[in-house]
């Protein structure tokens, strides 16, 4: 398989002194779609934030490598330039900065200096992508995420994903707060990204997103670790039976963080 490889090894992460991740191991290759599932409060979003370099999360042990390069040594913008992307669960509102200006700055920051995207080409690509995601055109001139509905914010994250075309994307609960129509559109966008090079880690605690996006690998997180991995059939069983059978199998009483097994 071509594309990039993201390797997460024995990752331990703290927030304000509390250990959330307690040794996560995960490898994602280009062309693969992985889903990380699990009940609330088991460390899924922490994993996403730690990979991108959220300022509140501190990695205390372990490593994250992208094509062998040490991601933890990189600043947040360098991680993006290396090919990482995180569709955030709660995107920030940036007053006074239009979505269009922001996207153009982003695209140009990912390109070589002197190789900025021509304006017309940018506009065309943005128009097409917005059409594809059934986004109202005036969003381009609205301030980034300011006053956006929950659904608009999620679509905007996927718009960015499709415009920036990263090598490796993490989608953090991209399905939360979406109605069924919006969920279909967002899934359509994500599926369009699928190719031999693109790697994707989808974090969700609802099975329903996986009705539209079929993952190659499914992982279940509990207590800050990946406790079970499998193929798409694992997601199906989770949908049918919930998480209790895993807890039983592993002897876990409370799956959330802070409840050490």
């Amino acid at each position, binding site marked *: 398989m071509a594309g990039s490889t993201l390797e997460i090894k024995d990752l331990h992460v703290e927030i304000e002194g509390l250990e959330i991740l307690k040794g996560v191991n995960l490898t994602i290759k280009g062309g693969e779609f992985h889903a990380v599932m699990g009940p609330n409060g088991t460390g899924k979003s922490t994993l996403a934030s730690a990979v*991108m*370099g*959220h*300022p509140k999360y501190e990695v205390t042990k372990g490593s994250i490598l992208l094509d062998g390069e040490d991601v933890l040594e990189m*600043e*947040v*913008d360098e*991680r*993006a*330039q290396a090919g990482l*992307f*995180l569709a*955030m669960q709660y*995107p*920030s509102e*940036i*007053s*006074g*900065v239009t979505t269009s*200006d*922001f996207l153009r*700055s*982003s695209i140009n*920051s*990912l390109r070589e200096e002197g190789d900025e995207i021509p304006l017309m080409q940018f506009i065309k690509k943005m128009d097409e992508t917005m059409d594809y995601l059934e986004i109202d055109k005036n969003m381009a001139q609205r*301030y980034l995420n300011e006053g956006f509905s929950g659904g608009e914010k999620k679509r905007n994250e996927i718009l*960015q994903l499709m415009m*920036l075309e990263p090598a490796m994307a993490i989608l953090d609960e991209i399905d939360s707060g979406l109605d069924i129509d919006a969920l279909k559109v967002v899934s359509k966008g994500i599926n369009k990204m699928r190719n031999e090079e693109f790697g994707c880690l989808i974090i969700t605690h609802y099975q329903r997103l996986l009705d539209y996006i079929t993952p190659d690998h499914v992982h279940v997180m509990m207590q800050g670790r990946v406790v079970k991995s499998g193929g798409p059939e694992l997601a199906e069983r989770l949908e049918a039976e919930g998480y209790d059978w895993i807890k039983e199998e592993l002897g876990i009483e409370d799956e959330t963080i802070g409840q050490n097994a």
Partner: protein
Amino acid sequence: MTVETQLPYDKDYLMQYSERRKEPQWFRDVRLNAIETAENLAMPKLEKTRLKNWNFTNFKHDVSGEAVQKFEELPEKIRVLLGEKSTSENLIIVRNNDVAHASLSPELQDKGVVFKDIFTAMNENEDLVKKYFMQDGVSVDEHKLTARHAALLNSGVFLYVPKNVKVEEPIQIVFWQEDPEAALFNHVLLVADQHSEVTYLENYVSENKNEEAVANIVSEVFALDGANVSYGAVDNFEKGTTTYVNRRGVAQRDATIEWALGQMNDGNTISDNVTYLMGDNSYSYAKAVSVGRGDQKQDFTAKIVHYGKESEGYILQHGVMKDNATSIFNGIGKIEHGATKANAEQESRVLMLDQGSRGDANPILLIDEDDVTAGHAASVGRVDPIQLYYLMSRGISQQEAERLVIHGFLSPVVREIPIETVQAQLREVIEGKVY
């Protein structure tokens, strides 16, 4: 150095200076009285800014400047301000203390518009200058700096728009402090006669990153009944200049004064912007943006005083503080007894970018009348690290992310500014200060 240091300029010096400038006797008297008054007055009282160690005394007072023949002679930063075309027909450029270029369109001259340096005006338009100069606007004896202003005045402009004349094109002036130690004691006197309309735009530029200098500026704007004045300014003094700038408006019945101020100095600054809404149904909107950086300390006051019935005053100021810059933003709405149905609204917002930067917003409403409306909003906050994280997660560098956040923070004011040239200038100057 302390603020109590004596000025090295005495009455004899001022007599000679005044003679050389060929000033009328009445103005010479203003100077001589003012220098005496200045001795006994205190510095302006600022609630939260200490003026200790600010330079108010170290400067060269009398510095001349050569005429500018061609646009290309101007330094880059001024050419940018004027726009590369610079076809403005109504433009004065003051270089150090002398007029280096002056033009006023023949049509405006025919209509009786006066736009000339203040020394010429005090002879040629003596009645008007004498009537308005530091009488009903700013008084000589408000404090030590206003008195020093009158005593040491070495530059200025007089703009008069006759009754019913509507000036379509902006009237523009650039004060260029080419000599890095030259002081600017500058007076702007703008009189818009009844039912006239004018847009005035000024720029202050200096070139003293290291040398010390002083700017002491008083602007007085008189909008007579039904007149409409739009006043734009972009202050851009370098780090070495300590600035006191006092822009004051007086609006009569049905008159409007709109301010659009870009407070972009790099040195310590006191900026006072006060409007007296004297007449019934008068109106003022004061908009200001500021960017502070380095170690500079600044004190901004936007104040509107309501005397007239149904007068309306709006204040909107946004400031960004970087590095170790400190700024106080005072917003004052004052409604005097008898100003029924007046409306005083204000909004001040400050964004601090770095650990060392400080900002303070003081919204004040002083109301001496029952039948009025008033409101204020103020906020002071640090830049949200999560915002920067979000922007950077798309590949944008921290510096670029901060730039976007700053432009975004200031844009609600910048885009509300009615004069397009000021908007464009501000974007340029903000851009220059962000990096």
